[in-house]
């Protein structure tokens, strides 16, 4: 489902005399449907970077990243947008939303984007928000006013609203307490059961062990210092 | 006739220029033709456009009538009539039936006109879209491209503000299904009369535009489907001649505010009275029927 082949990335910082910083070389990874792969490696080794490259948020300088049947590296912007809408979900560490939009609409949005009827979308959104223990009185408010933990749970509800065949999860359980963490992990297990291919970053070892079928250390892709 | 002036005051070349403009106007009904308006011995705003058109049209055996708001005896009508008597030496008359050229300010005679007659209108502002679109460059484009949505915006605003189309004079019309035209500040009561047998010519001296409506041309007053054009009626009969369906002027009789309604078209009223029609004449109407 997600096939990363010989992928390399560097950053060119023009404002610092155009210095080139290679951050990744010859990364290879294959994630099958129903599989969850955890990315490990110490801070700064490129876990988030690799995830963003899969999402098309960062450019990839060499190699192929095939999600479903689309190679992200050579795809047109339009094709990536369609992929993000239908196939590839991304739950980042931070909730990024348009001001003024109520929580219920934030969570319903990915479903409306794929053509689900408003009533059905709202119903599922309510179900997810209830599961993630966001009280009903908050559903009509903008999540920008919530606590960090609440925002993260809204973020997750939105991420799981549409059943993506492929998902990227960047620290989904950070800033959550035990009970809420448990709920999120079971959501991930459900997703695996329905066949989603998942790449995740979990700092919490217990969480990693619970949902990941295997781990990949991204520091093996870090270019060796000359 | 005075021999100091060329026939009808204007030199022959000027008359040619004006006639060319008139022919173009007749060929494109309702289209405003620019022309080189001359300095006339009367200020702008006093009918110089009408006078120039009349001057270009007159021939020695014409009979001229001049009316101002329907009356032959106002100061302006008298002055213009005298002007042409002096410079053209043509016969003048107050009888609509006798005239071959009728110059008018702000009214159409009540009596039906014939194919032998020319009606010359005095026009202050020829551009019907001017108040909503001040740019000449833009209004010219709108006429050229038949973009008249703005005209209906004006009527919409009327209805929104007053509940009905409040424009009561200079009511815009569409000529032969193409150009929207300002008929000059005639009351909307007169609009239906614009479909007539006579040739209608319009002159705006200050704005330097001439336009025309040939005989038997379709003239449609703009409106909405659910607010159709209403010409408004005479609410009552003329106090002098008992005309039931003429445009009336209101005359205040005394300090107590008693008023009387009489035909605005003085010649029409006279003709009816001579034929024996009598309104509530002599006695002012005591109740305010308006």
């Amino acid at each position, binding site marked *: 489902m997600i096939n990363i082949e010989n992928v390399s990335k560097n950053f060119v910082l023009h404002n610092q005399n155009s210095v080139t910083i290679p951050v990744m070389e010859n990364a290879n990874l294959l994630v099958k449907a129903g599989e969850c792969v955890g990315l490990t490696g110490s801070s700064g080794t490129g876990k988030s970077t690799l995830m963003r490259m899969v999402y098309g*948020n960062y450019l990839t300088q060499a190699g192929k990243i095939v999600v479903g049947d689309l190679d992200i590296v050579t795809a047109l912007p339009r094709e990536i947008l369609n992929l993000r809408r239908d196939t590839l979900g991304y739950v980042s560490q931070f909730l990024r939303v348009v001001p003024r939009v109520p929580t219920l609409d934030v969570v319903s949005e990915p479903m409306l984007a794929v053509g689900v009827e408003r009533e059905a979308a709202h119903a599922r959104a309510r179900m997810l928000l209830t599961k993630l223990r966001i009280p009903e009185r908050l559903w009509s408010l903008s999540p920008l006013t919530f606590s960090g933990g609440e925002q993260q749970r809204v973020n997750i509800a939105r991420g799981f609203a549409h059943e993506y065949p492929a998902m990227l999860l960047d620290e989904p359980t950070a800033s959550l307490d035990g009970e809420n963490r448990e709920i999120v992990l079971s959501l991930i297990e459900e997703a695996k059961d329905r066949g989603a291919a998942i790449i995740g970053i979990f700092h919490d070892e217990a969480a990693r062990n619970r949902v990941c079928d295997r781990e990949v250390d991204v520091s093996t892709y870090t270019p060796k210092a000359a | 006739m005075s021999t100091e002036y060329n026939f009808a005051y204007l030199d022959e070349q000027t008359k040619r220029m004006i006639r060319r403009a008139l022919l173009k106007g007749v060929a494109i009904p309702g289209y405003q033709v620019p022309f080189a308006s001359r300095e006339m011995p009367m200020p702008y705003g006093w009918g110089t456009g009408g006078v120039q058109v009349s001057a270009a049209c007159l021939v020695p055996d014409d009979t001229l009538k001049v009316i101002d708001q329907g009356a032959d005896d106002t100061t302006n009508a008298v002055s213009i009539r005298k002007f042409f008597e002096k410079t053209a030496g043509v016969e003048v008359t107050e009888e609509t039936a006798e005239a071959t050229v009728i110059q008018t300010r702000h009214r159409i005679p009540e009596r039906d006109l014939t194919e032998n007659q020319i009606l010359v209108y005095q026009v202050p502002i020829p551009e019907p879209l001017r108040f909503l679109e001040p740019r000449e460059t833009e209004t010219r484009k709108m006429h050229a491209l038949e973009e008249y949505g703005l005209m209906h915006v004006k009527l919409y605003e009327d209805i929104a503000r007053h509940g009905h189309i409040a424009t009561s004079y200079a009511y815009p019309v569409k000529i032969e299904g193409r150009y929207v035209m300002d008929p000059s500040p005639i009351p909307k009561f007169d609009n239906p009369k614009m479909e007539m047998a006579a040739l209608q010519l319009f002159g705006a001296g200050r704005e330097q535009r001439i336009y025309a409506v040939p005989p038997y041309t379709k003239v449609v007053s703009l409106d909405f489907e659910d607010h159709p054009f209403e010409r408004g009626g005479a609410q009552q009969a003329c106090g002098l001649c008992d005309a039931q369906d003429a445009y009336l002027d209101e005359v205040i009789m005394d300090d107590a505010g008693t008023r009387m309604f009489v035909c605005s078209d003085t010649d029409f009223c006279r003709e009816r009275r001579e034929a024996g029609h009598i309104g509530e004449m002599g006695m002012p109407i005591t109740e305010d029927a308006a």
Partner: protein
Amino acid sequence: MTPLLKVENISKYYGNRLGCRDVNFDLYPGEVLGIVGESGSGKSTLLNCLAGHQEPDTGEVVFDTRVEGLKDTVTMSEPERRMLSRTDWAFVHQNPRDGLRMSVSAGGNVGERLMAVGARHYGDIRSTAIDWLDKVEISDDRTDDRPSEFSGGMQQRLQIARNLVTGPRLIFMDEPTGGLDVSVQARLLDLLRGLVRELGLSAIVVTHDLAVVRLLADRLMVMKDGHVVETGLTDQVLDDPQHAYTQLLVSSVLQV
């Protein structure tokens, strides 16, 4: 799928001075393209060339018209282009005064385009206008008020309603939130986003504000000195900028 708009080799010079050059892109139905750059980058020139307000020196702007398929709007006759800009296209000006008739009521402003394409029933025109005023959150009781009595944000929302009433498929926006207070901006952007999505509009938004572009645009073009220096997905261009100028632009945004 055919692109809604195909722009090829657009260039415009002002005498010897460069306005913009070599601009190429496709725009598909439902896509929002942002064009950012600082003053003098050529973005406004480009927008004016695309929208038919100015004639480019070279290039084609091919639009997929409803009735006649793909047509180059640059070589279209003026009546055709004017009709297009009243029906299938919309243009939201930075200053609402440029896009409204200040002496005509709000209802009249919204109804004008309908009347321009032949609507002749007062009642229907008025109710359509009130519908649209609702959609842009202007209350009914202001229908007969003139925009000269409105606040800047309301005038801008009225301009949007006026443009959208004939159901255009492509909307050009020139700094749509420029000059508005921050809270008013947020409301307007939210409204625009909603309408774009609900109506399946395509849009080309010119702005110097990166936050606006991140919120509204799917794709982004960065312009400098008349050239397009970088183009791609909005989030990619802002998060992983490749060109020196883009990197400078992104790093210059003040954090709040």
